[in-house]
């Protein structure tokens, strides 16, 4: 017979405003097994925990029910608290009377009734709880970072500098990510590659970092501390070890001069050869052959690169290669792209080459870009005179053309663009149509104000309704000026769209492989929006950069560092405590039918001939055996088992049924 203590939390007024806490205490006092019941203003506070610990000792409690917030919030707190008082931590159950009751209900009487029922269910469960012991599993002291942009680079460097080996998997031929495409960075206007390139080089030279470029994660198995990952190294057609990065192949490739292959790095504004590195500072500085466009791969003729390569590293026969590696932790840093603008006809993006996205503008303004850093119109190669920026293209949209969130970086980079243009070419007129200018960040508003005050950029509050290309090659922009109450029609030579950001297309696929949760916008979900912002709810998976939500470079770098710290904290442990809520087989009921092993995602179940001795039995049978180090406690086996021999500790059949009974009483 258990001796259960029930503690009901007021959570200030969070619970007490809708649930009559005192009444709950009075009503649960007479439940089976309950020997003590009390309430307190903040159960999770030190004083509240003290109260719990004292009650455990004073009343010899064998079980605890805490009626408070979600177990996802404070279950660990109260388990630790129980352990401190000498009670097995798995004798604690939480009745969630805040998120599942007080916060969503308004009627005090009904909410109180529900709180009592939720408490009863938890009490019924605790009556059947048994003390459980945590197991241990070893930690592979190596981390994987998926994505080699600034987020992945920073995370990898921080982990590597702490002394742990890190692998970066980057699907493009070079690391660097979006940041390598940028020209300057706000709010200080540093040159992007000037601050990024040293980091890329550091990664390349770091003894603890290995880069898998032009590679993708193919399969992920295992669990925290013991992930097993298959990495597909796509065939580069170039021997990475022999290549010296001399660049002869790229300059001599006949397709380079035809200008037929658009350069992805330059957002299609420039062209590249079929054998190429995306940009001059590529890391690794080893080209790849684009087999879809390469003449040799298409016709079997050409082979110029192989003939001219001084180190003989061109290998047309190279195949994709699968590398399997073990990791203790995985960081997702898959970054972002900008949305497709096909659905925004009104801005004429698809019909007029002089309507460009901000990312394209970055390339046009970059000295290494397709125009050598001269801001020229793509249609006629002339310098524009009037430039109009349109904000929130696809951001903050309630319809299915865009995204519901604010992309966060556009206000600042537009101020940056406006300022840079006015700085280089003071004769150009720059107009920005905005809905709101959002500049929360250190020195951010000052930066935006400089654009207006120092550079006289024309900021107009109002959205643009339509961009109309004219026969003379110019554009007419029709927009609102809400403050002046006018509809404006103005001439422009170039229109720049602040297109919404969206997570990388592969984010969902990768999240699925990692069994990490992901939201409707394909951003990875953090374990707690406020308190665990760089961790996925899936243990051992960490989030870095835009894959978690829109953020700028300073934020990305801070988050990357934070993710690294979490990884280091994990890798620093020799053993991890394993969840003791594992499956357990009752040998008297097991038929050895293998059904459970068929559904186990972790291969944790094996079968052994076991001597079964008990009332009326004394024979050797084929019995299921659970490897508790592998078992993650999902319970798939328990509901697949035909005879009900498999049960899950901590969520046993009888415990769940007793909860059902308590609720339906």
């Amino acid at each position: 017979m258990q001796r259960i203590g029930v503690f009901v939390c007021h959570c200030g007024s969070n619970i007490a405003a809708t649930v009559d806490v005192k009444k709950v205490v009075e009503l649960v006092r007479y439940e089976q097994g309950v020997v003590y019941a009390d309430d307190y203003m903040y159960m999770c506070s030190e004083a509240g925990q003290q109260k719990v610990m004292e009650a455990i000792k004073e009343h010899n409690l064998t079980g605890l029910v805490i009626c408070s917030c979600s177990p996802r919030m404070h279950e660990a707190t109260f388990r630790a608290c129980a352990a401190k008082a000498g009670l097995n931590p798995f004798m604690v159950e939480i009745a969630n009377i805040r998120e599942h009751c007080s916060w969503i209900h308004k009627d005090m009487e009904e909410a109180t009734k529900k709180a009592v029922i939720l408490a009863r269910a938890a009490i019924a469960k605790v009556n059947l709880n048994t003390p459980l012991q945590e197991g241990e599993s070893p930690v592979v002291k190596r981390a994987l970072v998926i994505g080699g942009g600034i987020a992945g680079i920073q995370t990898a460097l921080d982990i590597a500098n702490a002394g742990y080996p890190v692998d970066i998997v980057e699907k493009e031929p070079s690391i660097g990510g979006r940041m390598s495409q940028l020209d300057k960075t706000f709010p200080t206007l540093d040159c992007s590659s000037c601050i990024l390139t040293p980091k890329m080089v550091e990664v390349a030279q770091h003894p603890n970092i290995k880069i898998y470029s032009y590679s993708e994660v193919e399969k992920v198995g295992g669990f925290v501390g013991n992930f097993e990952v298959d990495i597909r190294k796509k065939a580069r057609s170039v021997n990475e070890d022999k290549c010296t990065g001399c660049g002869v192949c790229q300059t001599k490739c006949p397709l380079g001069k035809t200008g037929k292959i658009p350069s992805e790095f330059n957002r299609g504004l420039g062209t590249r050869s079929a054998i190429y590195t995306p940009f001059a500072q590529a890391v690794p500085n080893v080209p790849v052959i684009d087999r879809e466009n390469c003449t040799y791969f298409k016709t079997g003729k050409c082979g110029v690169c192989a003939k001219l390569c001084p180190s003989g590293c061109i290998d047309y026969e190279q195949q994709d290669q699968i590398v399997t590696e073990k990791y203790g932790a995985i960081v997702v840093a898959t970054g972002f792209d900008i949305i497709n603008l096909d659905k925004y006809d009104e801005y004429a993006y698809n019909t007029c080459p002089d309507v460009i996205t901000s990312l394209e503008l970055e390339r046009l303004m970059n000295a290494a870009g397709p125009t050598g850093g001269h801001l020229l119109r793509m249609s006629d190669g002339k310098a524009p005179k009037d430039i109009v920026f349109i904000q929130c293209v696809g951001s903050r949209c309630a319809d299915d053309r865009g995204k519901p969130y604010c992309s966060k970086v556009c206000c600042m980079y537009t101020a940056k663009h406006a300022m840079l243009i006015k700085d280089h070419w003071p004769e150009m007129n720059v107009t920005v149509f905005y809905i709101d200018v959002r500049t929360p960040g250190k020195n951010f508003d000052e930066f935006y104000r400089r654009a207006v005050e120092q550079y006289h950029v024309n900021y107009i509050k109002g959205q643009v309704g339509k961009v109309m290309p004219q026969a003379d090659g110019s554009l007419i922009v029709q927009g609102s000026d809400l403050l002046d109450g006018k509809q404006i029609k103005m001439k422009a030579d170039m229109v720049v769209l602040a297109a919404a950001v969206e997570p990388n297309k592969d984010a969902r696929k990768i999240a699925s492989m990692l069994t990490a949760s992901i939201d409707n916008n394909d951003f990875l979900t953090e374990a707690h929006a406020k308190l665990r912002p760089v961790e996925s709810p899936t243990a051992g998976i960490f989030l870095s950069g835009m894959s978690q939500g829109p953020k700028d470079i300073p934020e990305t770098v801070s988050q990357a560092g934070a993710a690294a710290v979490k990884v280091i904290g994990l890798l620093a442990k020799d053993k991890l405590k394993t969840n003791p809520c594992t499956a357990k087989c009752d040998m008297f009921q097991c038929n050895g039918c293998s059904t459970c092993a068929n559904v186990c995602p972790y291969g944790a179940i094996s079968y052994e001939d076991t001597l079964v001795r008990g009332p009326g039995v004394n024979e050797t049978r084929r019995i299921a055996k659970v490897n508790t180090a592998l078992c993650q406690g999902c319970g798939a086996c328990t509901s697949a088992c035909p005879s009900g021999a498999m049960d899950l500790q901590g969520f046993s059949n009888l415990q769940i049924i007793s909860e059902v009974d308590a609720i339906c009483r």
Partner: protein
Amino acid sequence: MPMNENNEFKPLIVAFCCNWCSYAGADLAGSSRLTYPENVKIIRVPCSGRVNPMFILRAFERGADGVIICGCHPGDCHYSTGNYYARRRMALLFSMLEYMGIENGRTRVEWCSAAEGAKFSKTMNEFCEKIASLGENVRLGDLRCKN
């Protein structure tokens, strides 16, 4: 039959929510103050694959009027595959209940992620309405049908 003061039928609804997605979704509904009726009571299970058909039958036998099982979206299961098995198991169970003359709609499976607090609340509101329209569960109390 439980009634409220307006003499409306208040169904008893048991919701099995997986710990990783739907329970967290319910928490999000809570912290976003997205309301749904009090008669929904949530039982936390590690995975929708943990839900044994026995639990559902038990709830009905004990007087529940509706049972809903919520799990991670297919493909997003924290344990990779649990919800796929649950999906098959529940499809067969629901079809069998229908075959035995139990009203459609007393049981439901909904995939709800940790980020879908609004969906969780909406689902519960819809489900409560549906069950209220079906009325009290009398058929599935005793399959021997001896009373």
